[in-house]
C-alpha cells in the first residue's frame, strides 16, 4: 500500500483507540479523557483533510475478514467523492462539537463516560462512511445506534432521558430489521455484499424489477429509522433529552444524515427502480411538510430545531427519490454546518440560562449574548434560505429537481420552505428580540472562547459553504455535475423567484405575528400535539400489542414453554442425569466399560 492508503485507517482507528482507552482505564480521570477524545477527533480531522486532497482509492484497500465458501466480507474502505465530503463533515463538525463540549460538560460527574461514548460514536459513524460493503456498514450502523443510545441516555438518572434513549434505540431497530432483510435479499441475488461487486453485477438483480423494488424499499427502511422519516420519526424530538452537543453532532449533523448518505451510496441500486424512487420521494416530502407544521407550534427551543432537522432531512430523502443525489448531498453538506451551529447556539443559550429551554422564558438575548446572537443569525438565515447564504443554494437545487420531475411535489416543497421561514422567524424573534421574560434571561451572557469559537467557525461556513467554488470542490466532479445539470435545467428562474417569495412571505409573517408577543398568539392543537402520532402509537401499542401479548403469552406458556422448552430441556436434563450414573466412580467398572467400548467400536469398524 502506498502511504495515502493508510490515512483512512487512521481516521477510523483514532477514535476507537480513544474510546477503548477511556472505557477501560480512564473512567475516573475526566480531564485526561476529554483531552484524549479531542485529540483523537483532531487526528481524524487531519487525516480526513489528507484523504480529501489525496487520490480516490476505491480499489484494493481492504483486508479479508470473514472468508467462507460463498460468503466473503472484507474490512475495506471506500474513498470516493461521496465518502470524502462526508468525512470532512463528520470530522469537522465532530471536532468543533468536541471542543464545545469541553465547556458544556465541564463539571459533569460522568464527563469521562461522555467523552468515551462520543469517541465511540465518531468511530461508528466514520465506519459507516468508509465502509465498502453492506455487512460492515450494517455493523457500524448498529454501533451508531448503540452509541446514540448511550449518549441520549447520558443523564440516565432522569426518567425522561432513559425513556428517550430506549425509544430511539427501539424505533431504530424496527428500521434496521428491514435494512438487514434488504441486505440479505441483495446478497442472495448478487452473491456479494461489497458495493463495488454489486455495481458490477447489477444485471443479476435488475433482472427481476419487483424483487429489486422490494429489496431497495427494505434497505430504505434502515434510512427511515436512522434519518427519522415518517412514520419512524418519533424518536428524534425525544432524543433532545441528551446533552445539547450530542444533539448538535448526532441528531442534526451526522448520524441522522447517515440514512441519506447510505441512500446516496446505493443510488446505483435505486435508479433502476422507479417504484422505489416514488416511495422514497413521497416519504421524504411527507416528512418535510409534517415536521415543518409540527415545528410551528413547539415551545422548546431544541424541539423546534429537532422538527426543523426532520423537515430538512425530508428534503434530502426526497431529492434521492427524485434521482438527484447531488443536490441531496449538497444540502446535507450545508445543512450540517448551519444546523450544528443552531444547536450549539441553542446550547450556549441553555447553558447561560441554567438549563431553561422554553423560548417564552427567553427574550431580549440579542444584547446580552452578542456573539451567540450574531452567529445564530447567520445559521438562521442560512436555514430559511435567505438569498446568497449556503442554504439558499442547496435548497434551490432540490426545489429545481422537484420542479423538473413533479409539480405537486414542488408545491409541497415550496410550502415547506415557507413554513421553515415562518417557524424559524418565530423562534428568532421570541428568543432574541423583545424584553427578557424571566430572571435567567436577564442575566444571559456569552460563553467562554472554547464555546464561542466553534460557533463563529460554523457561522462562517454556513455563509460560504453554498458557493460553487466550495461546493464543487467539496462534492467532487461527479456529484457536482448532477447539481450543475439541475441548476441549468428547465424552470430555474421561476423556482428561484418562488423560493425567494416563500422566504419573504414566511419571514414577514413570522415577524408580524410574533414581534413583541409574550405568549403564543395562535394555538393549533393538532400541530402542537404533533398530529397525535405519539398518542396514536401509544393507543396502537396498547390495543394490538396487549392483544398480541396475551395471545403470545398463552402460546409461549403452553406451546413453547410447556411443549418445547420444558419438554426438550427436561429430556436433555433427564438424559444428562441418567448419563451421570455411568460415572459411578468405580475403577473396575470404568475399565470394563472401556473394554466394552473398544469391542463395540472394533465390531462397528471391522465387521459391520
Amino acid at each position, binding site marked *: 500500500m502506498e502511504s495515502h492508503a493508510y490515512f483512512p485507517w487512521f481516521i477510523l482507528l483514532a477514535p476507537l483507540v480513544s474510546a477503548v482507552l477511556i472505557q477501560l482505564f480512564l473512567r475516573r480521570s475526566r480531564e485526561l479523557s476529554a483531552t484524549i477524545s479531542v485529540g483523537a477527533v483532531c487526528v481524524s480531522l487531519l487525516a480526513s483533510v489528507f484523504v480529501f486532497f489525496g487520490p480516490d482509492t476505491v480499489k484494493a484497500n481492504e*483486508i*479479508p*475478514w470473514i*472468508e*467462507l*465458501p460463498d460468503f466473503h466480507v472484507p*474490512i475495506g474502505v471506500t474513498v470516493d467523492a461521496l465518502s470524502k465530503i462526508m468525512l470532512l463533515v463528520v470530522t469537522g463538525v465532530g471536532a468543533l462539537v468536541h471542543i464545545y463540549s469541553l465547556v458544556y460538560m465541564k463539571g459533569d460527574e460522568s464527563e469521562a463516560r461522555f467523552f468515551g461514548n462520543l469517541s465511540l460514536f465518531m468511530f461508528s459513524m466514520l465506519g459507516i462512511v468508509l465502509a465498502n460493503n453492506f455487512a460492515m456498514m450494517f455493523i457500524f450502523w448498529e454501533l451508531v445506534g448503540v452509541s446514540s443510545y448511550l449518549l441520549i441516555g447520558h443523564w440516565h438518572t432522569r426518567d425522561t432521558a432513559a425513556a428517550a434513549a430506549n425509544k430511539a434505540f427501539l424505533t431504530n431497530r424496527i428500521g434496521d430489521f428491514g435494512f438487514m432483510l434488504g441486505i440479505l435479499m441483495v446478497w442472495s441475488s448478487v452473491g456479494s455484499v461489497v458495493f463495488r461487486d454489486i455495481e458490477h453485477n447489477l444485471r443479476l438483480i435488475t433482472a427481476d424489477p419487483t424483487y429489486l423494488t422490494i429489496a431497495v424499499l427494505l434497505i430504505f427502511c434502515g434510512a427511515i429509522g436512522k434519518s427519522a422519516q415518517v412514520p419512524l420519526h418519533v424518536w428524534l424530538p425525544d432524543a433532545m433529552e441528551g446533552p445539547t452537543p450530542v444533539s448538535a453532532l448526532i441528531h442534526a449533523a451526522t448520524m441522522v444524515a447517515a440514512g441519506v448518505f447510505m441512500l446516496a451510496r446505493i443510488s446505483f441500486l435505486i435508479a433502476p427502480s422507479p417504484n422505489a424512487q416514488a416511495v422514497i420521494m413521497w416519504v421524504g416530502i411527507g416528512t418535510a411538510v409534517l415536521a415543518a407544521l409540527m415545528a410551528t407550534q413547539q415551545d422548546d427551543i431544541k424541539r423546534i430545531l429537532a422538527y426543523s432537522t426532520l423537515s430538512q432531512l425530508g428534503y434530502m430523502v426526497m431529492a434521492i427519490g427524485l434521482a438527484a443525489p447531488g443536490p441531496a448531498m449538497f444540502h446535507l453538506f450545508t445543512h450540517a454546518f448551519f444546523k450544528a451551529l443552531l444547536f450549539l447556539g441553542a446550547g450556549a443559550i441553555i447553558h447561560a440560562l441554567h438549563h431553561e429551554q422554553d423560548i417564552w422564558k427567553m427574550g431580549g438575548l440579542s444584547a446580552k449574548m452578542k456573539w451567540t446572537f450574531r452567529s445564530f443569525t447567520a445559521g438562521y438565515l442560512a436555514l430559511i434560505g435567505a438569498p446568497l447564504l449556503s442554504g439558499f443554494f442547496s435548497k434551490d437545487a432540490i426545489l429545481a429537481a422537484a420542479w423538473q420531475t413533479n409539480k405537486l411535489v414542488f408545491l409541497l416543497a415550496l410550502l415547506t420552505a415557507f413554513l421553515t421561514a415562518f417557524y424559524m422567524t418565530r423562534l428568532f424573534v421570541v428568543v432574541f428580540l423583545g424584553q427578557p421574560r424571566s430572571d435567567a434571561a436577564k442575566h444571559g451572557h456569552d460563553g467562554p472562547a472554547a464555546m464561542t469559537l466553534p460557533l463563529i467557525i460554523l457561522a462562517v461556513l454556513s455563509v460560504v459553504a453554498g458557493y460553487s467554488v466550495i461546493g464543487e470542490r467539496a462534492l467532487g466532479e461527479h456529484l457536482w455535475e448532477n447539481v450543475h445539470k439541475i441548476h441549468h435545467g428547465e424552470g430555474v428562474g421561476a423556482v428561484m423567484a418562488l423560493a425567494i417569495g416563500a422566504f419573504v412571505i414566511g419571514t414577514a409573517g413570522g415577524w408580524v405575528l410574533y414581534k413583541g408577543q409574550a405568549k403564543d398568539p395562535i394555538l393549533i392543537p393538532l400541530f402542537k400535539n404533533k398530529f397525535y402520532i405519539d398518542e396514536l402509537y401509544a393507543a396502537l401499542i396498547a390495543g394490538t400489542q396487549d392483544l398480541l401479548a396475551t395471545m403470545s403469552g398463552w402460546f409461549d406458556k403452553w406451546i413453547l414453554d410447556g411443549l418445547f422448552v420444558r419438554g426438550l*430441556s427436561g429430556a*436433555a*436434563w433427564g*438424559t*444428562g*442425569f441418567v*448419563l*451421570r450414573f*455411568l*460415572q459411578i*466412580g468405580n*475403577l473396575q467398572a*470404568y*475399565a470394563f*466399560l*472401556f473394554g*466394552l*467400548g*473398544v469391542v*463395540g*467400536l*472394533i465390531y*462397528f*469398524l*471391522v465387521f459391520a
Partner: protein
Amino acid sequence: MIPSLSLEITVLLLGILMLLVESFSRSDDKRGLAKMAIGILSALVGFSFFVDPASGNAFYAVDATAHFFKVLALLTTIVVLIMSLEYSSVLAKYLPGVTPGAGLGEFYSLPVFTCAGLMFMASAVDFLLIFVSLELVTISFYILVAYMRRHTASLEAGVKYLILGALSTGFLVYGITWIFGLTGETNLAAIQHALATKAVATTPLLFGLMLLLTGLGFKVAAVPFQLWVPDVYQGAPTPITAFLSVGSKAAGFVVLLRVLQPFLGVPGVGVKVLAVLALMAALTMLYGNLAALPQDNFKRLLAYSSIGHAGYLLVAVASVSDTKATFGSAGVAVAFYLAGYLLMTLLSFLVLIVVARHSRGDDILHFNGLAKRSPFLAFAMLTAMLSLAGVPFTAGFYGKLLVFAAAVQAGKFWLVGIGILTVAAGFYYYLRIVAAMYWQEPGDTTPITIAPLTRTAIGALTLAVFVFGICPQPILRQLKDGGVSAVQENAGKPPQSADGLRPWGV
C-alpha cells in the same frame, strides 16, 4: 536460524535444572524457580520463529503444524505455571513436608517435562517418536494428578488415571505393532508409501487402526473412552486439570491428524475410519454436553465441557479427506479450534483458581455475586463462558464456524445438526455461571486481590479471545500458507525402511 530440536532440548535441560535446584537449594521459597521457567519458556516462544525449516528428518518434521502446536504447548505451560504459583498455598496444605515450600519445586518442574513431550509430539512423524513423547507427557501427568498426597480425591484421581492410562497405552502399542506387522514400517511417510505400493489386507489394518484410535481417543477424551475424565479432572490439582484438558487434548489431536493421513487414501479403509470417527464425534458431543447440564461443581462441569469440545474437534477430524485441499481446511479448523479452546479454557481455570482460593470451594455457588466482588474477574469469566458457548465475536464462535463449515463441505450434515443441538445445551450450562456471577447476591463481600502476574495473564487471555473472534484472518492465513497436513514435503528425507538409517541411534 537455529535447529528445531534445540527448543526441546532447552526445555528438557530447564526441567533437569529445576529438579537439581529443588534438590540442593536450601531456600524454602520456590516461586523464583517457576518465574525463571516462565521467563525461559516465553523466550523460547520467540526463538521458535527462527527455526531452520530444513532441520527436520525422517523422525522429526519441521513444518507450520509443528510450529503452531509447539507455540501452543509453550503458552499452555506458561499459563499453567502461573496457575501453579497462584495455587501453591492450597498445594502446600496437602503435601507431606517439614518446611512450607517442600515439594513445590518438583511441582513446578514436572509441567516443563510435559511441555517437552508435547513439543516432541508436535514434530513426531514416526510411531516410535510418537509413542515415546506421548509417554513422556502421560507419565509426568500420572505424578502431577496424584500430587496432593494428603488429599484422598487427588490420590484416587491419580490411581484411576494411572490404571486407565496404562490400559489405553497398551491398546496404542498393540495397534502400532499390528500396523508395523502389516507394512513393515513405523515411519508415517514410509507407511503411506508401503500402502500405496504393496497390497495390504484391509481387515487387520482396520483392526490395528481401531486400536490406535482407542489409545488416542483416551487422550482426547472421546466417547467411549471418556469415563476417567470427570473424576480425574475434579480430583487433580486445578492447574493440572487445566493442563490435562488443554495439553493432553492438543497432543492427541495433532497425533490423530498426522497418523490418519497415510490411511485415508487406502480403498475400503479411509471411508470406514472416518465413519467411526464421525460416530465417536456425535456420541462425544451428546455425552459431554448433556451430562454437563445437571452439574453443580464447576470443575466437573468444565470436565464435561472438555468432553463436549473434543466432540466438536472430532467433527472436524471426521471431515478430512485424502485430497489436500479439504484435508487442509479441516486441519485448519482443528488447529484454530484448539487454539481458541486453549485460550478460553485456560482463562476459565485461571479465574476459577483465584475465586476458589477466596471462596474456599469450586462449586457454581461459589461464583455468586462475583461481579460485585471483582468486576475484572467476572468479566474475564464472562468472556470465557461466552466463548465456550460459541457467541459471535469470540474465539469459540469462529472455531465452531470453521468446524461446521468443514463438516458441510464433507457433506456430513447430520453431524452439523447434532452439533447445533448440543451447542444449544451448552448455552444453558455455561450461562448458569454467568447468571450466578451477575444476578446472585454474593455470600461473602470481601474484595478479591489478584497477583500482578495473574492479572496480566487473565487480561492477555481475555483480549486474545476477542482478537481471535474478531480478526481471525491473520492466524488462519498463517495456518493455510503453512498447509496443515500430516506428512509434509519438507519433512526431510525420502521415506526409509524401518531398518534403514536411524538418526541419533534409536
